[in-house]
């Protein structure tokens, strides 16, 4: 491995950035091929297990186990006097299990709560690990250990035996999850119900914890102890924001894990061999940030866009309402002065002009220099909004026994969001009324003469 390591570092020292990129995609180096296989395996196993870990609220436990394996790795090295893959694997798993048991013991048999116990064990074990690591590096055989790779990870240092171990663990995880997917699903969602139908909830939990420990240990080489928990949490959290069914959460999480692994490996290789761990975590965190901002259902940006659209629509509809009032049952195609509209709603004239232009854009009005004329669709929607408003006022005064002077503000909001079904229900409940509580006429529904799709999309209640 050392010859390859030297080769890789020489490549990075001599070649320009472009050459590095070309080298990466031609997969000329065996180390690189190994690295790619390694991060793909890690992305899959950590991605799927991470989903369960997150949904069970055990993310921090994964983090602490990740840190806690370090003393196990070091002890295995001291005992074997060399970097033996199997010994390190066993040492790491034992340390991880010991940490998990210690956390359980502290929460169970003292008044310390889980978060504090996790913090205690994480830092304690990690501290011991760092002490060991530093001592080992000062020993005579220390410099050939490559143990420091365990801190921040180096996917390019993965050897054939490392990959074999990773492949076995990933395959085992996938087979177990495929075999018992339903059992894992129901125990994670509702543990007591699962137990009540005879599913061994404790056994399922133990199986998950075991697989988690194994996955953490095999991911160590690629991302390092400090950041291994990110491979469990970040892809899973990203997938959670994008999916509504567990099957998809697992698949997307694995995909994000694999993508981050590859992107991180690429960054690490191209930019002068920064440790792979931080690069992979950087890629994964970017994925999460994108999902957080742009997830179609839960993202901040789509939500903001919906809110802006809704508030624009409400502005338009309020202007339509004012226009309807000014038309005062006269011919619907009479031109209405913008100045009158501004006076009617106490708006700035520039604001009225802007909203009028917006009405023109959606085909509800034509705008002249100083006035506007409602289109048939605009007039229809105007009547609809006024109708909603007055129906709602009537409903509140009659059915909810509110005073007449208390219902306007409520109706101002409701009028924009009532769907056709609710309006129909209101009409039925109120026996198709013609007058609102203030004695004003409730406009009858105007049959659609324009394309119904436009009106329905305008009138639809947005999800947010």
């Amino acid at each position: 491995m050392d010859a390859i390591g030297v080769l890789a570092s020489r490549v990075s020292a001599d070649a320009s950035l472009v050459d590095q990129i070309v080298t990466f995609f031609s997969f000329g180096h065996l180390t690189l091929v190994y690295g790619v296989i390694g991060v793909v395996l890690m992305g899959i196993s950590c991605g799927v297990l991470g989903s369960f870990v997150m949904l069970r609220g055990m993310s921090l436990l994964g983090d602490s186990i990740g840190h806690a394996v370090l003393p196990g790795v070091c002890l295995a090295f001291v005992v074997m006097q060399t970097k033996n893959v199997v010994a390190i694997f066993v040492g790491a798993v034992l340390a991880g299990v010991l940490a998990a048991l210690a956390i359980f013991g502290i929460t169970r048999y003292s008044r310390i709560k889980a978060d504090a116990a996790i913090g205690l064990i994480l830092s304690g074990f990690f501290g011991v690990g760092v002490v060991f690591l530093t001592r080992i590096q000062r020993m005579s055989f220390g410099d050939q250990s490559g143990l420091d790779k365990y801190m921040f990870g180096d996917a390019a240092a993965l050897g054939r035996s490392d990959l074999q171990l990773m492949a076995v663990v990933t395959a085992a995880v996938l087979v177990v999850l495929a075999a018992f997917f339903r059992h894992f699903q129901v125990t994670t969602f509702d543990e007591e119900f699962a137990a009540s139908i005879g599913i061994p909830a404790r056994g399922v939990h133990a199986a998950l914890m075991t697989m988690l420990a194994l996955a953490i240990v095999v991911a160590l080489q690629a991302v390092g102890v400090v950041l291994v928990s990110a491979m469990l949490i970040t892809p899973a959290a990203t997938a959670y924001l994008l999916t509504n069914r567990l099957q998809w959460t697992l698949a997307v999480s694995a995909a994000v894990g694999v993508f981050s692994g590859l992107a991180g490996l690429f960054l690490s290789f191209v930019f002068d061999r920064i440790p792979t761990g931080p690069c992979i975590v950087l890629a994964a965190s970017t994925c999460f940030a994108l999902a957080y901002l742009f997830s179609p259902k839960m993202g901040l940006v789509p939500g903001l866009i919906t809110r802006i659209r809704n508030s624009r629509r409400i502005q338009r509809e309020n202007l339509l309402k004012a226009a309807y009032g000014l038309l005062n049952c006269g011919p619907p195609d009479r031109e209405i002065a913008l100045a009158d509209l501004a006076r009617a709603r106490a708006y700035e004239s520039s604001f009225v002009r802007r909203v009028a232009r917006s009405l023109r854009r959606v085909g509800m009005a034509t705008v002249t220099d100083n006035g506007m004329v409602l289109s048939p669709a605009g007039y229809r929607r105007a009547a609809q909004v006024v109708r909603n408003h007055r129906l709602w006022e009537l409903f509140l005064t009659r059915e909810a026994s509110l005073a007449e002077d208390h219902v306007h503000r409520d109706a101002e909001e409701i009028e924009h969001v009532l769907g056709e079904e609710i309006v129909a229900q209101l009409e039925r409940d109120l026996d198709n009324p013609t007058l609102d509580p203030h004695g004003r006429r409730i406009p009858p529904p105007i049959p659609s003469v324009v394309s119904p799709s436009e009106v329905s999309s305008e009138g639809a209640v947005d999800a947010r």
Partner: protein
Amino acid sequence: MKETIDNNEPALEIHDLTVAYHKKPVLWAIDLSIKEGQLVGIIGPNGAGKSTLIKAIMGLLPLSSGWIKCYGRPVGAVRGILGYVPQRESVDWDFPVTAFDVVLMGRYGQLGPFRRPNRKDREIARACMEKVGVGGLADRQISNLSGGQQQRVFLARALALDSRVYLMDEPFAGVDAATESAIVTLLKELRSQGKTCLVVHHDLQTAAEYFDAVMLLNMRLVAYGPTSEVFTHELLQKTYGGRLTILADAAQAVAAARGGN
């Protein structure tokens, strides 16, 4: 499994049941026998051990003493016969599953490795959703359901179990009036099929109307019998009144003596 039970035995028989949490007793020496085909309300103040009783019957808690039999057999041996409806708040409704996925969980009991629910299981799940009026919500993610709809999904899942004895933990808590009456209709239908339902209930006013028999519970079984006989001023006073608080004090003393907290 279901064929081997003895229909002449009581649907549920509880003998000398004591349950403790962290060494602190929460239920003391409960004796009870419930005949098949009854709607039984479990009534009592907060901390009376109502949920604990249901979980103990389901085999979800270790017993300090006593035994529970279902149609004459120990509960562990007759799993499919007992159906559990947990409290709605006990799960995370943001979980990535659809309403249909949740109802289908009612069919997981017999599922071996590498097996998926088959077409018949899916048909049953769908029919159960129709029965409680959430057939149109099958593909909704569960966080997009109202409280009443979530409760109906839980009930549909229980129906999918096709159990003979149902244990329901506060199914009426936080649901709308339409759901409440739908649940009552469902309970009556289950009774007409000879099923037995034990229902934890909080509202004394409606309890008399909904249930055939009532269990008054406050760490001890205060009374069990037909609603008309048990719902007396005296027994309710005994259940909710101050005298029984001494039980809680005693439990504290027991826990302290055993070295708990």
